[in-house]
């Protein structure tokens, strides 16, 4: 730390201490949860358990990254679940050659993935356009696609399930990196590809938020939109990009989910995802009113929610009760935020 900070008056130091507690409380909670499980949950320390939890959390975190950026501007994106369904619907249509014939399967899959993600991103841009052009509140503007988006996905697939078995595509949900040649059950099986994608995305977004001009602009808008505009921040442009990124993330997560399921069901893909993602963001310590955000917090938040649920299920608590615990976590996180601002 620098010289100036050593001279900080006691009041400022107290606030610093509080901020530090706030910052690390989510991480501490995660570590406590892990320790609890190490001692009380049978067979917790195993590759399989780590695998299950990380795999289940990946889609939430991928969506959560976009959601964190949206919330950092003081907005909210309810459409992410529906955008996942759209991306999940269009991709199989393309790689199953339903629209046009692509001979080379790798090309078809590449087109499908890029198409799915970009389409979701385009819808995200539309959200941002509604919000900035007509000054509609984000919760209302994104409600449009929350409702209509799933309908669009159903229309694209005629409401029918699209099953497929295609390793060229499904690596994104089932593939593994660093997989050893012949591992017996219980051994290290490699890192699931979606976990790698998740971690790369988290790292990139965290770096972007902290170090880039765009990240600064996002936080300035969330902190005080009027002040940001009067200081020359291109508010509308930044917001459109943020909602677009949220859409892109949702599109990617949609691909992961259908790859895991080996099928795309427009009714099911991404159902309830908006709430899971918002919960992860809130538990992670991002200020819901905007202006302060942490991407790694969202990762930790998602892990906490996942692990609480896992802990309860593994110890024989019914899933309904586990949902109550999730709700309690969110309440606790929001309470902690209100304390930090007092």
């Amino acid at each position, binding site marked *: 730390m620098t010289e*100036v900070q050593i001279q900080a008056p006691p*009041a400022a130091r107290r606030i610093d201490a509080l901020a530090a507690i706030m910052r690390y409380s989510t991480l501490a909670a995660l570590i406590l949860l892990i320790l609890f499980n190490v001692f009380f949950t049978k067979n917790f320390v195993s590759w399989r358990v780590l695998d299950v939890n990380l795999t289940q959390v990946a889609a939430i975190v991928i969506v959560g990254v976009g959601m964190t950026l949206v919330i950092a501007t003081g907005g909210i994106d309810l459409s992410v679940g529906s955008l996942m369904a759209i991306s999940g619907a269009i991709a199989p249509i393309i790689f199953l050659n339903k629209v046009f014939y692509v001979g080379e399967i790798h090309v078809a899959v590449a087109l499908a993935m890029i198409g799915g993600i970009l389409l979701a991103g385009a819808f995200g841009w539309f959200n941002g356009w509604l919000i900035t052009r007509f000054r509609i509140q984000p919760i209302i503007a994104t409600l449009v696609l929350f409702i209509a988006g799933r309908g669009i996905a159903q229309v694209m697939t005629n409401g029918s399930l699209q099953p497929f078995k295609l390793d060229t595509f499904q690596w994104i949900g089932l593939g593994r990196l660093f997989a050893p040649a012949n591992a017996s059950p219980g051994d290290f099986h490699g890192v699931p590809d979606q976990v790698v994608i998740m971690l790369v995305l988290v790292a990139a977004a965290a770096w972007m938020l902290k170090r880039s*001009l765009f990240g600064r602009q996002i*936080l300035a808008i969330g902190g005080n939109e*009027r002040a*940001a505009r009067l200081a*020359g921040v291109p508010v509308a442009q930044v917001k459109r990009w943020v909602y677009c990124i949220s859409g892109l993330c949702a599109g990617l997560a949609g691909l992961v989910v259908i790859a895991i399921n080996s099928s795309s069901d427009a009714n099911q893909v991404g159902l309830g995802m908006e709430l899971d993602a918002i919960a992860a963001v809130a538990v992670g310590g991002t200020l819901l009113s905007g*202006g302060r955000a942490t991407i790694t917090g969202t990762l930790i938040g998602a892990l906490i929610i996942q692990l609480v649920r896992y802990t309860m299920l593994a110890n024989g608590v019914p899933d309904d009760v586990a949902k109550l615990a999730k709700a309690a976590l969110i309440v606790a996180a929001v309470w902690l935020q209100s304390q930090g601002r007092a």
Partner: protein
Amino acid sequence: MTASATPPSVSPLLSMRSISKAFGGIPALSAASLEVAPGEVHALVGQNGAGKSTMIKILTGYVSRDEGDIQFDGGPFEARSPQDAQHKGISTIYQEINLVPFRSVTENICLGRESRRFGLLDWKAMHEQARTLLARFKIDLDVRKPLLRFNTATQQMVAIARAIGFKAKLVIMDEPTSSLDEREVAVLFDVIRQLKSEGVSVIFVSHKLDELYEVCDRVTIMRDGRTVRTAAMASISKLELVASMLGRDIAQVAKSATAFGGRRAQIGDVVLAADHLSAGHKVHDISFSVRRGEIVGFAGLLGAGRTETARLVFGADPMRSGAISLDGQPLVPREPIDAIRAGIGFSPEDRKYEGIVPEMAVSENLTLALMPQLSKAGIFDEAKQRAIVEKFIKRLGIKCSGPDQKIRELSGGNQQKVLLARWLAMNPKLVILDEPTRGIDVGAKAEIQTLIKELADQGLAVLMISSELEEVLEGSDRVFVLREGRNVAEFPHTEASESAVMTAMAHGDSDLIPEGSAS
């Protein structure tokens, strides 16, 4: 109390003795005292952090005291909440109006104490009640109309009427004039005199010294959580008052009090020329110019269109017609970014609402407008930012624990300096300062005024808007007077007498403009 004026002949209405309070180990009040006589208007003054607001918060039940004794109306007094205090006869009027704009005047006044008849609201009785209450303050209006149909001043009066109700014995006014123009202030003072004649006491908190002399009987001066002095207004000079507040000797104060006056600037070419600007209902055909090294002041009542005109130049609001040029180049600012790129900075009147980003650090707030220049290929250069921030913290004397301290933890004066630095850092041609010293304590105010003068001396063109006539008159090289959205007069520094400017503000009579100075 280290000094005291002659005690009032009658027993005091309110007596707070040896009040102490600490927040988290830091003392806010140390054995402070305050005594108010019946029917007295008592000024409570002090710099920011002197303990005025803590004193009032204790009295009105917002916070509890650690030590001390409060006597009110002949008995020990204890308020559990502001509502409780109001019930017991102590009402508070805050800076912001806390009313429901879409409901009628009656509803706003009677909210929470409605008259009922057979279980239904007795509208007739309530309208009558509201009318009677307003009549007391010589306000006659249709109480059935929604509040938003009336202007800010009337709304403020309704708020005051509501707060005072029928049974307040003591009314606390915390900077009641900060959002009023001079005419509205006069109306408020009539209300205060009316209250006084009815035997109601008033505690009057204000940064504006002239107002204290106009309306107050006695003054209690606080500094660093202590009561420094209580005196009759008539027996204490302005200079003594300021000296007591600052804890300095009079010679020093005399120097800082005159620092802003007597500008003899080296004025250069026209930097900003605004021709026939019009927009909305508030700006009609306004023309003015600002030259290099010149401070141009906008004088006018609230609602005269000063802020609105400035916002047009900065691209913050859409313009209907008119032309702007900067250094001879035409400028069409559609968004603030256009004006910023052209070299204009704008410090808004409401720091909290439009100026600072409270959750961000001093450094981030300071460089908010400079972010694109501090970035290369979209990546932010922290080291470059730090160098700039440290330079300006030193240059403007911004008091903070360091560049990383959150701006919301700073005092108003230091926040304002950060906002000034935000624009100075981009080396502008023109800065627009809307109420640069509003809500800032006397010490920081003088510092900022001196700073503005220095900047102009270095060649910066400054457009300054202030509701304090004194600030405009002493700080400007040229004064434009706006009235009801029109530019009614222009005075050079030497001819901008208080009476001439005020006459123009009030009447806008072109006859009254001194010959040869009108453009």
